[in-house]
């Protein structure tokens, strides 16, 4: 019975694969040339890199919803009942080597995050990459035993988690007075995008690190 199921699933999967591959080989040329539209509008966007322009300006609401999804995922993890007892709150002691390395690397990682955020305006980079570097620093600190897992979240931490989404919504609401949602005035676009991205970086870094630091705490059995 089990073997039969395997054979059926594998047959169906290979049929799906062949159909997908065939349809891709047969795909007509796109009717709308998006890259040219982006290039044509790039001067209005406030940044010089097309991907950042799409993320934060042309399709800003995608990014707005994305940070909302991130926050919702972390909140979802926080409402699950967790084992909160004694030992797991304290970081596990790690080797001196790892601790020293983490102490040396984390300031550099914060610096790199700041650079990646700034560079996003004119080359690959931006809030998400910078936030990922920040989150990596947080995970490294936890693994080195320098940062405890999250059990209860204080006011400052909660504010940090939410500030990206709140600033994004505030900017969106503020520019709505003169047009549609998240349509920045061209003169202000660069500054508004930088303000949004700086706050996004902080929130994304904290949320991504939190996904790890909440999960790592909840698993250790009391």
């Amino acid at each position, binding site marked *: 019975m089990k073997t039969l199921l395997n054979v059926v699933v594998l047959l169906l999967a290979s049929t799906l*694969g062949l159909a*997908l591959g065939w349809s891709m080989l047969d795909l007509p040329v796109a009717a709308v040339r998006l*890259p040219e539209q982006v290039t044509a509008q790039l001067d209005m966007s406030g940044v010089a890199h097309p991907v950042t322009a799409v993320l934060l300006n042309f399709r800003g609401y995608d*990014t707005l919803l994305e940070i909302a999804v991130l926050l919702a*995922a972390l909140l*979802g*993890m926080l409402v699950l*009942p967790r084992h909160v007892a004694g030992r797991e709150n304290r970081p596990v002691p790690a080797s001196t080597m790892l601790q020293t390395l983490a102490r040396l690397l984390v300031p550099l990682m914060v610096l790199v995050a700041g650079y990646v955020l700034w560079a996003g305006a004119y080359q690959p980079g931006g809030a998400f990459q910078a936030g990922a570097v920040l989150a990596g620093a947080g995970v490294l600190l936890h693994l080195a035993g320098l940062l405890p897992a999250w059990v209860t979240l204080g006011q400052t931490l909660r504010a940090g988690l939410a500030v990206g989404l709140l600033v994004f919504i505030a900017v969106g609401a503020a520019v709505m007075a003169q047009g549609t949602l998240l349509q920045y005035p061209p003169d202000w676009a660069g500054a508004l995008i930088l303000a949004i991205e700086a706050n996004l970086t902080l929130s994304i870094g904290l949320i991504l690190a939190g996904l790890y630091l909440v*999960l790592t705490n*909840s698993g250790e059995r009391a």
Partner: protein
Amino acid sequence: MSAALVYALTGAALFVFGVAGLMLQPHLLRKILAFNVMGSGVFLVLVGLGQRAGIPDPVPQAMVLTGIVVAIAATALALALARQLLDLQGEMRLPEEELDKDRLDV
């Protein structure tokens, strides 16, 4: 065949591996991994087909960047739920037999 198509076809293959893994592997951790493989396949298809014309298209690239972050968040939530199931049931798999029995009773 252009390099862009090779990426897209590889993405389609990854997606299919993910689908098969999702259906065949009973362990939830493997299902979550298979789901991630599916997602990576979709990202590769989007980026690959986006540069068919020779120049990379920033719109699918931005969509993939968004998708990667959402996939991380969804994976973390799925892991937390799977761990909750492990705590409640003692194993990381969906209770298939009981479901079948319920269906028979009805």
